[in-house]
């Protein structure tokens, strides 16, 4: 690991000031992605700004038709929250399926969405539920937040504070996990709400994406059968050592049907 300076700010304003003063600084949340990256010398920040000293950034609030989750809330906290399990069980299940218990004890929702790994689980939940990402300076709609592979709409020095999920009528998530890491080879989040049906896919393409043909079919009939004939084009999907694009396209259909079944059971 390259050397860096370490700061643990006690306020959001202090964190912002540190980021502004050090253009090569990086935020540290759970560290479950950033620290392995530093160990492999794939990043060399001048400074780490640890968000661990800002308890206001962690916590769950359920009310006013939404579930609000603070950026520093760990995957384990979301998975075990009685409130999230009651209001949005699909999101609790998504969090429970991330990595392993030790990863879930440290990894955070803010770190996961800011990192925007193409195979991460939370992006599917954020886009599938049409959530809003609240930062230190603005609110960003889910559809505008993920802009590419490991890319988001976040500006330099911008800090995610919270994610606000509208509570749907029904929702489900299903993924085909990589057997070693549990990252999604393909994962599909489906939600039915007053505004319509949303289908968001992670793991299969360079970044999370929606499937309008499935959304239309599920709006007409919210059943697994309704999407059985919808084919996903493999052209834009990923091929790597885990799966070909054609196999991923097939998996998207299978996972979408399982997600709908799970939504109907919840």
């Amino acid at each position: 690991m390259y050397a860096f300076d370490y700061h643990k700010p006690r306020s959001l304003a202090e964190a912002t000031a540190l980021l502004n003063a050090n253009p090569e600084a990086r935020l540290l949340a759970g560290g479950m992605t950033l620290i392995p990256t530093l160990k492999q010398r794939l990043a060399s920040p001048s400074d780490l700004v640890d968000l661990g000293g800002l308890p206001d950034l962690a916590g769950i609030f359920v009310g006013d038709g939404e579930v609000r989750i603070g950026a520093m809330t760990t995957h384990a906290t979301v998975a075990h929250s009685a409130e999230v399990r009651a209001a949005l069980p699909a999101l609790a299940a998504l969090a429970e399926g991330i990595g392993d218990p030790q990863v879930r004890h440290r990894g955070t929702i803010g770190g996961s969405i800011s990192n925007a790994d193409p195979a991460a689980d939370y992006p599917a939940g954020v886009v599938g539920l049409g959530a809003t990402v609240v930062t230190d300076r603005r609110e960003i709609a889910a559809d505008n937040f993920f802009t590419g592979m490991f890319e988001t709409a976040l500006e330099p020095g911008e800090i995610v504070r919270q994610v606000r999920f509208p509570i749907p009528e029904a929702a489900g998530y299903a993924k085909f996990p990589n057997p070693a890491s549990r990252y999604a080879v393909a994962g599909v989040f489906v939600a039915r709400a007053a505004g319509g049906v949303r289908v968001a896919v992670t793991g299969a393409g360079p970044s999370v994406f929606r499937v309008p043909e499935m959304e239309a079919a599920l709006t007409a009939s919210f059943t697994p059968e309704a999407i059985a004939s919808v084919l996903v084009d493999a052209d834009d999907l990923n091929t790597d050592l885990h799966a070909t694009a054609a196999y991923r396209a097939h998996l998207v259909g299978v996972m979408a049907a399982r997600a709908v079944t799970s939504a109907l059971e919840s």
Partner: protein
Amino acid sequence: MIDTVTVMFSVNGNDVSAAVEPRTLLVTFLREHLGLTGTHIGCDTSQCGACVVHLDGRSVKSCTMLAVQADGQAVTTIEGLGTPEKLHPMQAAFNENHGLQCGFCTPGMIMSAVDFAQGNPSPTPHEVREWLEGNICRCTGYHNIVASVEAGARAMAKA
């Protein structure tokens, strides 16, 4: 010039205060600064779990944390669990059920299992296997590890 940072935390019940470079991993601090070599390093990818310790009672991978991140908290390692004369019930269960062969994964397995058993006194084999997702063993084939964790959890509930 990188400044060192002073960290203060407890390790196995003893207060520790030290000036560390920010890049020092918790596992490096435990092994090389404190000589607590029971915590192992088995991978570079945060996947094997040989390095699992408890931070305020919850299992974490000490290879994927900076020592400075443990400031103000309580760290427990395998050395803090039991002694050769008086094994912790989970250690005794691994011994009795032949839950190890080479033993490299064992400290991490036991630290992970103790965290699990605290919240689940009578787990099913399936629950044990789900929980051990983050602990890799290259010898045993897991069968006896699962049996050990089941027995250890029951013994902990009685202790």
